[in-house]
């Protein structure tokens, strides 16, 4: 503001929100210029969790880079794994067997539920409803227990493999998962009543952070952020991967593109996920969970390495050189991760390591839209907006 002589000087107050702040979901930093309670300018700063995953991936074999993807969007690591494996499979031109596809579909939907539950909890906590957070976490703990049953890990699972999945599912797991899909929609309905009928919640979310359909497409938003604005774009439906073309589900759409619509979209998606999991269990075919090409891509089991010479050589080659049959080409492969479109762009040059590994992370794009949402809103809305874009900084900064 230019200095005015003889009058009071007016200047915006600049406050720095984050990286250590309870509502920034990790290490996002916002620089807010505020005039009273109104935000005049909002500048997001990211990169506080930049770990160099892309560079690291270029220096590792295709097999060894898989665990790195767990730590991108650590809330839904299963979906990242699936996306990575799918991209490598497409690059190498192989395909997972039918049973593995169903298992992957099931597992990535479980990841979606766990991710959306965490979003619900933290979003509600930011707005001030603290009990929803604990209820959502209680439900999430159930999913994590199921993950543990399936893979042996809670959070960073590294379960899918290039050309299939690591191990077959047990009957016990399937029956507990089935029970979960039975009870989950009922529970979620109960928790929803805590906030959905609440006038304060409606006031805090309706007509807050509106993105029109044109804006959403122009900014490159994907996932519930795009569907909340009413654009019908879901990779699971229109570019099906794994077993999504064999199951039946709806894609929930919003109308106004405000925080409330996105909230409704995600809540509905959780119910659809439960529906998909149910169908997967019902339709799960028999057969192997690894492709017959597996020896070229997957480490043999430990017992065989100790006894079998061939297996040991195979193990050795895979670890040192990576899959040696890599073609000379490039691929962009994307999946519908819980946050939005998670894309992998590989450039291969015939060696066992990717020449360039690029991650198209939805959170990065979604975080860039924050100034659009926040400018002109109140300070309290900034918090609601950070919650609604549902970012994970691990994926945003890579």
């Amino acid at each position: 503001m230019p200095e005015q002589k003889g009058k009071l000087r007016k200047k915006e107050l600049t406050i720095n929100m984050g990286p250590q702040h309870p509502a920034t979901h990790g290490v996002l930093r916002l620089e807010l210029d505020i005039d009273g309670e109104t935000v005049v300018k909002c500048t997001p700063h990211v990169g506080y969790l930049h770990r160099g995953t892309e560079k690291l991936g270029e220096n590792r074999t295709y097999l060894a880079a898989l665990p790195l993807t767990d730590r991108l969007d650590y809330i839904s690591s299963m979906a990242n794994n699936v996306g990575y494996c799918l991209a490598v499979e497409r690059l190498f031109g192989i395909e997972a067997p039918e049973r593995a596809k169903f298992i992957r579909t099931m597992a990535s939907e479980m990841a979606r539920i766990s991710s959306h539950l965490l979003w619900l909890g933290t979003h509600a906590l930011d707005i001030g409803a603290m009990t929803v957070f604990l209820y959502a976490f209680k439900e999430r703990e159930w999913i994590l227990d199921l993950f543990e049953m399936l893979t042996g890990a809670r959070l960073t699972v590294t379960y899918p493999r290039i050309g299939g999945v690591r191990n077959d599912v047990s009957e016990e797991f399937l029956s507990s998962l089935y029970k979960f899909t039975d009870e989950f929609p009922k529970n979620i309905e109960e928790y929803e009543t805590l906030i959905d009928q609440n006038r304060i919640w409606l006031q805090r979310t309706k007509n807050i952070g509106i993105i029109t359909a044109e804006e959403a497409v122009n900014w490159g938003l994907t996932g519930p952020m795009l569907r909340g604005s009413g654009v019908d774009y879901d990779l699971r439906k229109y570019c099906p991967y794994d077993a999504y073309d064999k199951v039946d589900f709806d894609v929930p759409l919003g109308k106004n593109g405000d925080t409330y619509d996105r909230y409704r979209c995600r809540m509905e998606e959780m119910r659809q996920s439960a529906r998909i999991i149910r169908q997967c269990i019902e339709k799960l075919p028999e057969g192997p969970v690894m492709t017959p090409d597996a020896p070229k891509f997957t480490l043999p089991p430990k017992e065989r390495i100790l006894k079998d010479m061939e297996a040991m050589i195979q193990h050795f080659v895979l670890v040192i050189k990576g899959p040696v049959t890599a073609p000379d080409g490039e691929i962009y492969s994307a999946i519908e991760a819980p946050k939005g479109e998670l894309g992998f762009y590989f450039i291969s040059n015939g060696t066992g390591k990717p020449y360039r590994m690029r991650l198209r992370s939805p959170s990065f794009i979604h975080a860039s839209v924050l100034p659009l949402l926040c400018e002109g809103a109140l300070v309290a809305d900034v918090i609601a907006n950070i919650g609604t874009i549902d970012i994970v900084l691990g994926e945003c900064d890579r």
Partner: protein
Amino acid sequence: MNSKEAAEKIREMFPEEVREIREYNSQTSVIVKRDRIKDIIRYLHSDPLLNFDLLKDLCGVDYSGKKETRFEVVYHLYSLEYRSLLRIRAEVPEDDCSIDSVVDIFAGANWPERECYDLLGVVFKGHPDLRRILLPEDWEGHPLRKDYPLQSDLGEKEWKGYLDVIELAKKNMEFETK
């Protein structure tokens, strides 16, 4: 219009710009020169027959020693209407490491372009706010270049801010209660 036809369309419209059209795994990539990249992208965006309205991704690649032109900026465009994906690869030489920004066509290109500048050092002309995004603003070097070291110990190239923190920590340690 599917991506193959779209690629041909570009060759038709910009014959001297398009270097090559490649296909791998049923994905089409068009390798173009960088000079008229903005026109090409605008054409793809605004032509109602092509209507590539979603910029899925923008990234840079370092082909150090593999190709004549060292860098490439890769655009992944998607048409929501025709559901087709097209990859545009614009070649950027090392000596004049710059390309036109497409932020005024795709608002979503803002951060990816900043990231590309940050990690590879490609300058985007006409970008409204070209600063480093992932690394601190006074970081030296562009890490995603092939000649940049990977490991944590950067030796003399270490970021000053981090060294300052270690220095400060050593100083403050004296005041700690044991």
